[in-house]
């Protein structure tokens, strides 16, 4: 409701633009969130006003939303952690990845011995991280993952982004990824899921892949691992080089990401902020 009141105060220009698209005042919050997307934030260059100082909350523009929808990932300008959270809020419901934890995770390269069990650092330490989706251990993994280089941090390690649609898979191979069943561990109770599920969330095909919490449920299912790994070897991922104030939005239901190569002695300066977002308003 607070949002709806804010909407009413956005000003004549915003309302006019909204009314062009929506003839009536939105009755439901869901619709309202769609309307929000029309309240485009200007880029800092064009407005000359730092986003964090403005009244408006940072949101994706329609153009950006379309690009995210089309390519499965998006690079954005986010000069503060608050901006990252606001962007996350405009996409859905940000949530902590651990009970009682912060909405923002700080991802720091960690030696194996010091890493928490179950994390990728526990298995790989400073090494590259293989392609994966985040929160694969959850029945419904986060819809979006937002990453941002933390203030004062720097990184020579890129993040590699690979939309599922960019993989060269035949229909038969996609069928196998949908059919083969995997055991997913890491939550309260293990459960079964294919890599590509069209029955977990109605109306969506959901990509789930993390070899540290998933294993084929039967020998027959091993072929789906081979299919995906072989396709990833041939893939041409996007390399995101981290710069200050830069954020990356990943559609986690259809895009894989990985930690790229980099010099080990610079690891300690690489701090990424991460926000996980549940789908829906």
């Amino acid at each position: 409701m607070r949002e709806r009141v804010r909407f009413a105060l956005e000003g004549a220009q915003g309302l006019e633009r909204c009314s062009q698209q929506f003839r009536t005042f939105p009755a439901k919050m869901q619709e309202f969130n769609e309307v929000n997307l029309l309240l485009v934030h200007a880029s800092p260059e064009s407005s000359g006003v730092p986003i964090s100082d403005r009244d408006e909350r940072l949101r994706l523009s329609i153009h950006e939303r379309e690009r995210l929808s089309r390519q499965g990932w998006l690079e954005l300008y986010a000069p503060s952690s608050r901006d990252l959270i606001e962007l996350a809020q405009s996409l859905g419901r940000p949530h902590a990845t651990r009970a009682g934890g912060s909405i923002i995770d700080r991802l720091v390269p960690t030696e194996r011995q010091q890493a928490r069990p179950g994390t990728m650092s526990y298995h790989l330490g400073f090494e590259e991280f293989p392609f994966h989706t985040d929160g694969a251990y959850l029945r419904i993994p986060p819809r979006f993952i937002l990453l941002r280089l933390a203030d004062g941090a720097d990184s020579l390690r890129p993040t590699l982004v690979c939309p599922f649609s960019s993989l060269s898979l035949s229909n038969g191979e996609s069928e196998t990824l949908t059919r083969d069943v995997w055991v997913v561990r890491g939550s309260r109770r293990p459960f079964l899921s294919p890599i590509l599920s069209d029955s977990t969330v109605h109306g969506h095909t959901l990509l789930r892949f993390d070899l540290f919490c998933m294993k084929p449920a039967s020998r027959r299912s091993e072929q789906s691992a081979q299919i995906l790994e072989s396709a990833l070897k041939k893939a041409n991922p996007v390399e995101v080089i981290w710069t200050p104030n830069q954020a990356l939005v990943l559609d986690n239901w259809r895009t894989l990401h990985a930690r790229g190569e980099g010099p080990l002695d610079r690891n300690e300066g690489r701090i990424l902020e991460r926000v996980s977002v549940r789908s829906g308003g």
Partner: protein
Amino acid sequence: MDGWTYDVLWQKAKLYMDRALSEDRDGPLFPFWAALALELLARATLAKVHPALLAEPDCILMAFGYDTGEKMAKSVMAKTVFLRCQKIVPDFGDTELKTSMSIVERRNEELHSGTLAFEEFPTRVWLSSFYRICKLLLTAQGQSLASFLGREEADAAETMIAASEKETLASVQKAIAVKKSEFEKLESSEQKRKHSIAETSSREFEDPSKRLETCPACGGRGAITGERVRAGAARLEGDSMYQDIAFLPTKFRCYSCDLELAGHAFLHAAGLGGQYSVTESYDPVQYYGEMFMENMAADAEAMYQNE
């Protein structure tokens, strides 16, 4: 109650089928895992409609996600599952129910007795029927044999189903040819007399699902009977209530040449397999009176259970 959601049941049915398919086809574990997969597939079919269809009456709230304090969610028995599938899944008739239950009973025998129930259970006895039933359940869920078995096994399953249908067709064609030949050997006057008797007998035969049909062997009058699939809404026309009841044809009898076909697959092969409707008429007082009495009986039962 996560265990009753469609997705988890569907994934587990696939896993159990994978386990079956990785076993020796002539060994006991292939049908054992397949039997478990069949039940999960049937449960998934109900869950696709709503998980409450899997809940024992005192666990209904759990199916809607309410914590009732019960530790274990009690699921309905396999027989109830398949009986419900019979109402929900198109073309899932008595034959399919009997076949499914015979597989489930064998599984029970294996698990609850000292008998080796799957030791002498060759694939020729059950596998094509099993795949045909799976296909019906899968279609009702919007899935396919390929999404259940994988492409290669699904192709083999389709071939087996087609062969079984071909076998059924051949046996039906033979039965029709025999009756036709017998009938054609009769004098013309005798043929006419039999046709005439058939007209009367078929009219006099009473069954709520009766539908008159022309015999594919002799051209005389026969009757189809079937299993009730669903009832349409009752409507008032003039002084009477009418209701269309849909039936799946499962039996045909010709009153002229005595051709008899039993089982939907056989009627389908004879070109008599389409579902049909019979309009029932009621006196409004009788219709609402019966409903009233049924409601009273249900209320009385509920009150009894509440005490």
